[in-house]
């Protein structure tokens, strides 16, 4: 087993070494973006996970879990750092409109679909499970993938403006997605026997403690890091220590490190002085964090397809297909309605307009955080659904509307 782990670590180093060639390959064949990057690591995770070769299983997986927790919290900090007062003030009215419409539509749709699914898919589940399911579906539905380069680039002013709106909207909705998913997770408690119950007061109390912990750590970190340089050893130490601490506080109180990380990032982001050392460290580690999360998602996926019976497999695929189709239809519609007042200044026919169809990769991270807490298997199945929707929605942007790269 130790030998297998050694090979795995060597394999990961080989992946990093080979990065130069894979990037060249990807630039030449844009379709490989669908299967490259995070997806390759997700596949690797599935291969080494407990359902395939079991290189990482049982105790070894438990030993790696603190790393996963830190990666989740790190993702939260990256999202939270966007909460800078200057950035929020710069959001145009049309984007507020788009965000509000997407939020309302996603919540309404999730309540309806969640209620229906709970009756059909999990008929014996308690109210708490319904709330959790609705919260998770909302997180799945909200927002979109902010990455737009792989769709093709147009450099005219209208396309550029749409690109900015797409990226800003994705960032803002990621915050809403994390908040909704983790608050619903926090309000649901699982007892020693695995039975879930709705405990809003306990959940709110735990959230309050987490908030206080984040405030103390963020205040101290801000005080220490105010003048740190880029790549400073002290910045690395404070960030790693704070992330471990906040992950631990959140997880042991039944919550998720993503929310505490996001709050930490937001508090730091709202500070009067920008912490360039911390921002540089966070952004430079972003690809590693994303790859790590996808790798762990691959390990956590409940295979075969999240259920043991054929009926379960069919149900999960059907749910994923239904939600992906709903996404394919509704997201462009929401975009057109929301941006109608500024139809002249944005290019709705540009390749970037397809970006909202693709599910945000962050939803996989949110579901992964849920899977860490959940022992009933529901989270693993929802994670499988999220991965399938991500894959289907990404494929649909390439298959249904072929890429047209136009450079002005």
């Amino acid at each position: 087993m130790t030998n297998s782990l050694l090979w795995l670590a060597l394999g990961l180093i080989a992946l990093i070494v080979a990065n130069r060639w894979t990037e060249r390959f990807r630039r030449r064949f844009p379709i490989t973006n669908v299967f490259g990057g995070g997806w390759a690591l997700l596949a690797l995770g599935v291969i080494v996970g407990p359902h395939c070769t079991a290189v990482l299983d049982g105790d070894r997986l438990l030993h790696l879990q603190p790393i996963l927790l830190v990666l989740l919290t790190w993702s939260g900090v990256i999202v939270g750092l966007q909460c800078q007062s200057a950035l929020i003030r710069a959001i145009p009215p049309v984007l507020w409109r788009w965000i509000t419409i997407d939020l309302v539509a996603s919540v309404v749709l999730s309540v309806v679909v969640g209620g229906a699914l709970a009756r059909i898919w999990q008929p014996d589940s308690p109210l708490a499970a319904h709330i959790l399911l609705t919260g998770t579906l909302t997180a799945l539905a909200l927002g979109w993938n902010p990455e737009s380069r792989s769709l093709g680039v147009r450099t005219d002013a209208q396309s550029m403006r749409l690109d900015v709106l797409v990226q800003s909207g994705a960032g803002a909705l990621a915050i809403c997605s994390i908040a909704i998913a983790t608050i619903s997770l926090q309000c649901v408690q699982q007892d020693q026997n695995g039975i879930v119950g709705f405990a809003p007061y306990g959940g709110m109390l735990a959230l309050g403690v987490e908030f206080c912990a984040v405030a103390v750590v963020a205040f101290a970190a801000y005080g220490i890091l105010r003048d740190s340089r880029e790549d400073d050893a002290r910045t690395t130490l404070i960030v790693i220590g704070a992330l471990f601490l906040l992950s631990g506080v959140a997880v042991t109180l039944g919550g998720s490190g993503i929310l505490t990380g996001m709050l930490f990032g937001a508090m730091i982001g709202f500070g009067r002085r920008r912490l360039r050392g911390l921002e540089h460290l966070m952004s430079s580690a972003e690809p590693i964090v994303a790859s790590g999360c996808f790798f762990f998602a691959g390990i956590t996926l409940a295979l075969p397809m999240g259920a043991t019976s054929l009926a379960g497999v069919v149900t999960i695929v059907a749910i994923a297909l239904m939600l992906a189709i709903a996404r394919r239809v509704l997201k462009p519609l929401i975009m057109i309605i929301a941006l109608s007042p500024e139809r002249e200044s944005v290019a709705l026919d540009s390749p970037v307009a397809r970006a909202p169809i693709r599910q945000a990769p962050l939803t996989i991270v949110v579901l992964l955080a849920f899977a860490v807490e959940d022992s009933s298997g529901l989270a693993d199945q929802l994670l499988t659904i999220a991965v399938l929707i991500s894959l289907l929605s990404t494929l649909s942007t390439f298959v249904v509307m072929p890429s047209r790269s136009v450079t002005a």
Partner: protein
Amino acid sequence: MKTRATITFKRKDHARFGGAFLATALLSLVALVLLWRELRVRVIGVAPGGLPAAGETALILGLVILGSWLAGRLIRRIALPPITGQLLFGLIVGPELWKWLDHPEFALIGPLQLSSLDGAASLAVVMIGLVAGAEIDAKFLREKLKAVIALAAGQVILVTIGVGIVSYLLLGSFAYAMIVATVAATCSSAVSVALLREMRHPTDFARLLLATTVAKDLFLVVAFSVVLFLVAATTLSTYQPWYWIVLHLAGSIAVGCALAWPMRLALARIERNMTAVVLLTAICLAILCRTIGIAPLITAITLGYTARNLAPIATASFFATARRLFLAVCCVFFAVAGAHLDLAALVANWGIVFAISGTRLAGIWIGATLAARVARLSPIATRWVWAGFVPQAGISLALAAQILVEFPNQRWAVGLTTIVVACITLNEIVGPVLMRIALRRVPSDGL
């Protein structure tokens, strides 16, 4: 010469956050963990055993990293090395102190939680080895080879003879005396490299101390294995053949050297994600050493030294990243070492411990001073060089643990290990303070 003017330690942060800020931050951190512990038991009703293990490990790691760094910064304000603060922090939050005071419930880190940090501590050993190896420049080593050999030989001879005689008189056995004397001659590469990295511009004197410590420890690992082999041959019916000992050390050095070539080739092709590469390399090395049974510290030192001197340009980014992570690594390593400090053994055997440690100190002082004169070091370096060899930590504790591995279920082995660990504990507390004084007193051009 005014030695006070030669302070080369980093002091730039003193103006930014004062002692009150650091103390408040440290107290807030401890209060936060205490509050969390009370809340989970009294309000949420989760017993300590029923918590998710990963969450608890993450929380303890966060406490150890942040707390020991803050404690190190705080203690630096009273002119003590940060390592002492980190060790003290580990001692206060760890289980040994409170077990000795008959209040184990006050420990923030229990024995089980401490064992969950073993993985992080093993990784820290490899990282320390890599950075220590990279700090030794081949050209510098060639120039100072005579001084290194003289200093190492002088101390080893005098310490082993002196401590050997005292131990024989106190313990009444030649075999026990040989074991205690060999462990007493070891120093701490981890403390040396940590204090060296603490300096803004590491001096030649600091590099000489590190190179001598590494060379001496490499020799003593072999010597200790030979001593254990001889003792086992006289007391046990089954013992490891002698060539295994040679293979253990030779294997560690050979693997370290052999890995330097693929490492150089790989690093020449890597431009980004260096943090991940450093961490994965350390994980690989730790697993490899455990799998084939070689010494992680020696392998890592050899790899760091060979790779750095073989391809200084290709490995520059790698070692720069390793040094950036080194601060966090040291915090974990020394806090965990502090949490393991066996105060009960130190107090129970204080007479023997002080006698052995006093003799060791005298042996180091005389041996190092004589050797420095032979090597023609400057008067100021000759005067203070002994203080750099007092600290003991990782490698000494590993050798002490080897006694129990080699002689399982032997009552004498348990007693002897307790005494050896108690001596190491004392040197672990006093050593860094003395070494830092030496580094501050000897000027950058004072070799």
